[in-house]
């Protein structure tokens, strides 16, 4: 009976998740590109040698890592602040919570187009304010040192409500009498945060951190529409590079190698984080 109930779902899961990774691994030892008439030809470690020496891959990997670390840190910080605010009791809280969730629900590509106009130089509203204050404008999307920050900004705007919602769920699991007991001992609000809230929220923070980090390292949609990976590939992500190799250069073997390389980095980072952060919360 169990086979009938689980079988179809399992089959689709294997097909969608496991088969691609297995096929990439196989493909990474083959050349399949325009020179081979798009037929797979075994080439041993050639793709992997190329990956190790590919400066653009490592540049993209560093850029993707920088983007993920900065935006996920900001999302956790701002999301925690937002969750603490929404966890207090005040009138209209429910309505505000739904309104703040709106950015998360919008398709990334839709709002990415919106951000392109908001960051526009010189006609966008942000530059309108900056010009009013300083008399000059900033080329947000045309300067390599600013463009990646614009991408971070747009990602933080979209994803912080999601982080806040999950942390809010964690906050609501903390029993109120813990805070009452601390208040009786004369503890301050800061002590309550450090001694009760943060330790008990730890598993939620860890879950959100790992989940968001995995998603952020796969950033693709936002960059395609907001900057197209530019200027001068300064915002290109690893996923964008894999896409470029497959769909523009029609080099499927190398694209698969890039994907496996990225998956390896992801596993390594997730494993290290789990080891470092997953100390038992209670003695």
């Amino acid at each position, binding site marked *: *009976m*169990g086979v009938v*109930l689980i079988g*179809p*779902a*399992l089959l*689709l*899961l294997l097909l*969608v*998740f496991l088969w*691609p*990774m297995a*096929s*990439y691994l196989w493909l990474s030892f083959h050349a399949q590109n325009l020179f081979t008439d798009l037929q797979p030809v075994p080439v041993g470690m050639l793709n992997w040698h190329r990956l190790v020496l590919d400066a653009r891959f490592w540049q993209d990997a560093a850029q993707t890592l920088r983007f993920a670390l900065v935006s996920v840190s900001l999302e956790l910080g701002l999301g925690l602040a937002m969750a603490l*605010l929404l966890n*207090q009791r005040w*009138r*209209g809280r429910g*309505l*505000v919570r*739904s*309104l703040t*969730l*709106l950015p998360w*629900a*919008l*398709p*990334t*590509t*839709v*709002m*990415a*187009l*919106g951000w*392109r*106009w*908001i960051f*526009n130089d010189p*006609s966008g509203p942000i530059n309108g304010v900056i010009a009013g204050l300083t008399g000059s404008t900033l080329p947000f999307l045309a300067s390599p040192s600013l463009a990646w920050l614009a991408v971070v900004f747009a990602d933080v*705007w979209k994803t912080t409500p999601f982080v806040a*919602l*999950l942390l*809010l769920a964690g906050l*609501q*699991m903390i029993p109120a009498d813990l805070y009452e007991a601390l208040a009786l001992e004369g503890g301050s609000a800061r002590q309550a945060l450090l001694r009760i809230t943060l330790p008990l929220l730890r598993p*939620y923070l860890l879950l959100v951190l790992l*989940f968001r980090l*995995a998603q952020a*390292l*796969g950033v*693709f949609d936002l960059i*395609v*529409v907001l900057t197209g990976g530019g200027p001068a590939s300064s915002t290109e992500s690893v996923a964008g590079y*894999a*896409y470029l190799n*497959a769909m523009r250069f029609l080099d*499927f073997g190398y*694209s*698969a190698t890039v*994907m496996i390389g990225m998956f390896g980095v992801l596993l390594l980072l997730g494993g290290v984080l789990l080891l470092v952060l997953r100390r038992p919360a209670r003695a």
Partner: protein
Amino acid sequence: MPASPSAQPIASQRGQNPRRWTLVALLLFWSLAPMLWQLYTSLRTPDALLGGLAAIGRGWTLANYGQILSSDPPFWRYLLNSTLVGVGTTLLTLLLAIPCAYALQRRGGLQRQLVDGALLVAAAFPSVLLFLALLQLARQFGLANNLLALCLPYAGLSLPLAVLLLEAAFAELPRELEESALLEGFGLWQRLRWILVPLLGPAVASTAVLVFLFSWNEFPIALTWLSRSELLTLAPAMARIAGSSVFSVPYGAFAAATVLGSVPLLLLLLVFQRPIVAGLTQGAIKG
């Protein structure tokens, strides 16, 4: 409670309220201002947009929407395609996930813990990594440029989260209820149909909305599977519009597209706010 944030706070004696309302106002500005700016832009003529605040009294127009809706294919076509894929994906996911979650939950033990762990990893997996292999499957089986076929990978990608959410819901059902149904001579399908699924309504609803949201927003697979412009879903259509020079700067038509692309989801979120929050929250507590 539908009270506006500007309403008189009840407990103003606490003294910290001015600070709180400042923070709430900041939060609302941060969340809503970018979207409101799109709405504003979409209703302005190009001259008015470049004219700044001096031009606030004139230059209001609906022409941007007219331009977007009369392009080829018209913009509503993308919304229709996305809706079709979203509904198909949601139905297929539920059809596969409900029995699977039921069987896993009733089985229990180490086996289930392992499966749940794997599902959690799959739920967090950045799905952009999968597009190339899925595209090759699509080519092999002639599934490209077929909106209903697109539901297959989407359902596969939605399954981990859906199964986890539904498993948590099944866990909360009293097992005795099922046992008494068994004594009454109900078969498995009857138990699913008459007892389990109706009682699971809320969890099914929140799972459905989350799956629909995912499907509506998915980009890399839609981008590579669909090439005929009248079949595009919203996400790749937005990317194509962003890359085209048909609509001139400054962005009036772009903004109209972002507004039209946002409205269906904003309505969905406001109507189904409760099940969405419940679903995500339960997912977090479970995980």
